């Protein structure tokens, strides 16, 4: 009997203790963040989305090679001699047209490995994280700022220049070969003359 009373007392005490805890939390502060209306401040250096400052890119391909999942796709075309692409803000001369610089954020695993090799610090993570898409192909970000016509023109020019260079080189090679042949011919003549002289002297 006494035990039953004691047990009941303990039961009620624990129930009221529990109810005290819940009522304190009821009136206490909530931790919910009303997400689309309020947003949490992201920590410094949050890795949410890759961004490329295309004006500073020299097309060195180091980031694409560092990427473990091959999500960076770069295509470069060498600039022609009549065009000066200028310099990056870090002072490196730009030598390539960037005809394609695509990053597939669906593949990206946010490892940050592409960021560190960049000699001009032009690829980095930004804290923009709301970029869901209905179609996975929309997650491929195109950073190249060249228009398609421009790309075609640049490629055409580069091809022509390459051809030109090739022709020049061939010309040069031919000239060199001719010179070489002439020199050899002259050397032969000299040798013949020398031998003739020798023969004369012997006579």
């Amino acid at each position, binding site marked *: 009997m006494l035990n*039953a009373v004691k047990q*009941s007392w303990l039961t009620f005490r624990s*129930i009221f203790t*529990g*109810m005290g*805890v*819940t*009522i304190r*939390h*009821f*009136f*206490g*502060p*909530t*931790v*919910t963040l*009303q997400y689309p209306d309020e947003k949490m401040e992201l920590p410094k250096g949050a890795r949410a989305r890759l961004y490329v400052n295309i004006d500073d890119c020299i097309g060195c391909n180091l980031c694409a090679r560092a990427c473990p999942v091959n999500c960076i796709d770069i295509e470069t075309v060498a600039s022609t001699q009549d065009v000066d692409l200028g310099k990056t803000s870090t002072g490196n001369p730009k030598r390539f047209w960037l005809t394609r610089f695509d990053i597939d954020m669906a593949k990206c695993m946010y490892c940050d490995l592409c960021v560190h090799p960049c000699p001009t610090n032009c690829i980095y993570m930004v804290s923009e994280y709301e970029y869901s898409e209905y179609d996975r192909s929309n997650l491929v970000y195109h950073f190249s700022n060249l228009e398609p016509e421009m790309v075609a023109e640049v490629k055409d020019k580069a091809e022509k220049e390459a051809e030109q260079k090739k022709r020049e080189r061939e010309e040069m090679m031919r000239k060199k070969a001719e010179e070489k042949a002439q020199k050899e011919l002259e050397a032969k003549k000299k040798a013949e003359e020398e031998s003739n002289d020798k023969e004369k002297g012997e006579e």
Partner: protein
Amino acid sequence: MTEYVSHIHPVAAILVHAAIPLTIILVYALVAIWGERKIAGFIQDRLGPMRVGGWHGWAQSIADLLKLIQKEDIIPTDASRFLFKFAPFMMFAASYAAFAVIPFSSAYVGSMVNIGVFYLLAVTSLLTLSIIMAGWASNNKWSLLGGMRSAAQMVSYEVPTIASVLTVVLVAGSLNLMTVTEMQSGNDILGFLPNWFIFQNPFLIVAFIIFFISILAESHRVPFDLPESESELVAGYQTEYSGMRWAMFMLAEYADMLLLSLLGATLFFGGWNSPFGDFMAGPLWGFFWFMLKGLSLVIVMMWIRWTLPRYRVDQLMHICWSILIPLSFVNLVLTALWEVIF
């Protein structure tokens, strides 16, 4: 007002008397479901529903209702079709019918019968039947287990409920809930306390505690929600129900909760009597006080729900058969002695 309607046509009177409690139940259910989610949220340091309707998501229940109406009405192939369809409506009818004898205010009671308490307890016992009906007709092991648990639980807990209600009936000397309420008017205890039965003698406090624990079990609230325990029985007898049929169960459950809380308010807390005597008294104030008392009990039930874990089946039966039932009968006898002596 009701007399005036019955002068026009008896059918009109029936419709009005049927519509008033129904309106109260429906409005209450919308508010209570939203309120329960808010209370749960705040207790768990969350906010609960916030988006529908503007201020604190007040229209969440309406949105839920619209969603439930649109849902497909699924009946399992192997279910007993008629009973499966009938059970939710029977369950709601059982708790709705009991509202007929609840005196909402000094001017309004659906049906002034002399056996009000008896009628109420008899009608609410139909709930057990409808839950078993739902569980068995679903042809699903979880549902059947839930239904069986519910039958065992409600049959057991009806005994302490009735014994504690009898304690009040013993003091009041009437089964008519209106008479019981009228007996509690006035502020005579210790000069200022209202004449509510809970203050009238110490045994009625014990009776109220027993009554409150029992109604928690009767209306399947945590910590006694074994028939529908989500985590172990996947919602018990409700497993196979969806859409509006499930909503009917939910409505019936909330209606049952309100009914038993209002019964508690009538029996122990003076029903529609104002706590300040004649101040703020009158039919409309009476309705206000009555709903305030009933809803306070509902809120306490919600508060307990989000505080306590669920009991095991054997613990549930142990509490009922070896503690509450003996205690309630001893309490009944002691109250009778108190009434004889004083």
